[in-house]
């Protein structure tokens, strides 16, 4: 049985005072160092709701911070769908992919925005950042060429961010990279500096047969940080070097952004998968705090704990670069 694991995401907001011209770089002025971390809390795979600030303990470089808490339900999202449209994705798979992308528009809210990028050997912006609405451009999605997966993931992570909005990247890929100029090490470094949270959905053959019945719906899920050993071992039978190509890189990548790796069966509905990813993300919390007692610059280790009894899975990114 696979278990919905807890993972987390953090998000550094530049901004606060002085309307930072550079939204991507945290700019802290007038002594105000504002950091926002999003945190996913699960109990047995189910979201834990109703938590308040007093329930959380957050350490920034080992120093406890006083946090405010918001629900992600209240925050407009900038969602980037990053889809592998290389030559190997054709026929029914491509149709399912198109359908999933089209349907995602209706699950976003009016104040959300979406962007759709196809990964081939180049990157194609199918839908530029805009309000979520059905667009014929998605129908034009076609499969061709190789897969510049690392380049696509890197480009999505380096996109500009807008203060007051949360950036979520959902990538759908078989994990194979064919033609990137970026290497895994660079990509993982980029992830540490990005403000976006990245979930990666990996379809594999016969995932359900290998992993047993998933606990929550059709998805076979793996945590970024706590890969279910049984699932992992089973998936190794599908690929000589692991469950799927570049498994370790993609796992680490999602972990660094506070996201998660989601393994699904090829036959699963892409629409349903995307909806679940979005729905579950919206059940996360935003923790905001004004950094105190730590230097703004350099790498900041983050540790988040929920002060509730029982075994809770708490997912949050491990840290961030400050200034």
């Amino acid at each position, binding site marked *: 049985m696979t278990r919905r694991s807890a993972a987390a995401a953090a998000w550094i907001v530049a901004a606060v005072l002085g309307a930072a*011209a*550079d*939204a*991507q*770089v945290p700019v802290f002025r007038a002594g105000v160092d504002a950091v926002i971390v999003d945190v996913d809390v699960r109990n047995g795979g189910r979201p834990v709701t109703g938590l308040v600030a007093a329930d959380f303990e957050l350490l920034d470089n080992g120093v406890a911070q006083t946090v405010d808490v918001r629900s992600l339900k209240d925050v407009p999202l900038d969602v980037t769908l990053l889809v592998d449209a290389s030559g190997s994705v054709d026929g029914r798979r491509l149709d399912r992919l198109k359908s999933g992308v089209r349907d995602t528009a209706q699950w976003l809210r009016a104040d959300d925005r979406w962007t759709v*990028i196809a990964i081939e*050997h*180049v*990157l*194609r*912006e199918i839908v*530029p950042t805009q309000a979520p609405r059905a667009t014929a451009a998605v129908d034009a999605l076609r499969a061709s*060429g*190789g*897969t*510049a997966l690392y*380049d696509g993931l*890197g*480009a999505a992570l*380096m*996109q*500009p*961010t807008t203060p007051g909005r949360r950036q979520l990247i959902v990538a759908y890929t078989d994990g*194979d*990279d*064919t*033609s*990137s*100029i*970026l290497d895994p090490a*660079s990509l993982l*470094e*980029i992830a540490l*500096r*990005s403000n976006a949270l990245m979930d990666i959905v990996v379809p594999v053959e016969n995932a359900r047969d290998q992993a047993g019945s998933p606990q929550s719906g059709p998805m076979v899920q793996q945590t970024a940080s706590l890969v279910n050993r049984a699932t992992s071992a089973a998936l190794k039978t599908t690929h000589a070097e692991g469950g799927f190509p570049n498994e370790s890189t993609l796992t680490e990548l999602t972990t660094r952004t506070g996201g998660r790796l989601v393994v699904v069966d090829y036959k699963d509905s892409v629409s349903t998968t995307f909806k679940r990813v979005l729905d579950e993300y919206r059940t996360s919390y935003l923790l905001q705090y004004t950094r105190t007692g730590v230097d703004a610059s350099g790498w900041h280790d983050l540790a988040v704990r929920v002060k509730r009894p029982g075994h809770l899975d708490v997912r949050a990114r491990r840290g961030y*670069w400050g200034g």
Partner: protein
Amino acid sequence: MLCFVAALRGSGPSTADLLARYIQHPDEVAAELGSVVDLDGARSDLDRLAPKFLAGLPAKVDSVISSVPPAGPAVSIPEQRRRDLVAFALDLAGANVAWHAPAARRLVEWGCYNVRRHLPPNEFDHRWQLAALALLEGEVDPDALREHLGHVDAQFPAEPRALLGRALADEQATAPLEFVSEANLATVNRARNPTGASQAALMARAAASYRALLSVEPLRGEASVRLAHVQIALGQYDQALATLATVDQESDGFVRYLGYLFRGLALDHLGRPSEAQAAFRAALELGPNAHAPTMALASSLFRSGQTSEASRLITNLLPNDDQTRDVWWSYWAGDFQQWGLLIRRAREFVK
């Protein structure tokens, strides 16, 4: 009476009809050749046509090559017909290689056989062989490439592109499999590891091949950037920088572009981001908005904390990413990027 197989989709023209039209309007008809689905059938058709076109050629190419000195008298044949036929065969192979690689390769070698039968080789033969070489390099199939290079050597033993092709074949054996077409996968896998050599050993052999060409003047620039590419793959970043030391002086834009790109990658690995970024910017001056240096520059800037400029680069790239702006994509395919030019030059001899 000859009975030709209609190798085209549906009720399209026969191979003979196509050839007849090709001889009259080679450039126009060449654009139509991509619809052939049975290249082996077309090759059989050409075999049946051959007696009309190749009268007078010796029957056994190998014996002729070994027994007739290159400076010997020309074999008396209807030369123009021979050129028409083999140029058509090569054009037909090139137009369909993406979908029917093995059959295209067989067609190239069918044409090559009939090119080699002609002695002494002339300018048409030279152009034909350069175009064929480019086509086979584009297949990223080092076995087939080496086999063909043996044929080129027999006719043009000092041809520099063939010398580079041999080194390229060595490097192609190390290519990421994603650059290899499905049709060639098994072959390439066999070729890359017939003796169980490690990837590092294969790369070391490729590096040695390129290094040997550094003293061959027409090849020095390209051999340098390709050697640097292998050195980067081997983690020899300092050596790669030394190899690329004179890349600024190269007149060939392809060589300078790749040289700057690889210099940037080597510097980036060495933790010298400012210099790496300068190199990527130099590449972008030669290839504005090209994917590879744009991504590499954005990555380096972002990781250095210069995230806003990196984001701007990405914002500009995403709506406009275009493979035709970036010759990096053709790196593994050698001279294939020149295929269009080279086949046109061969086609000039068709009348």
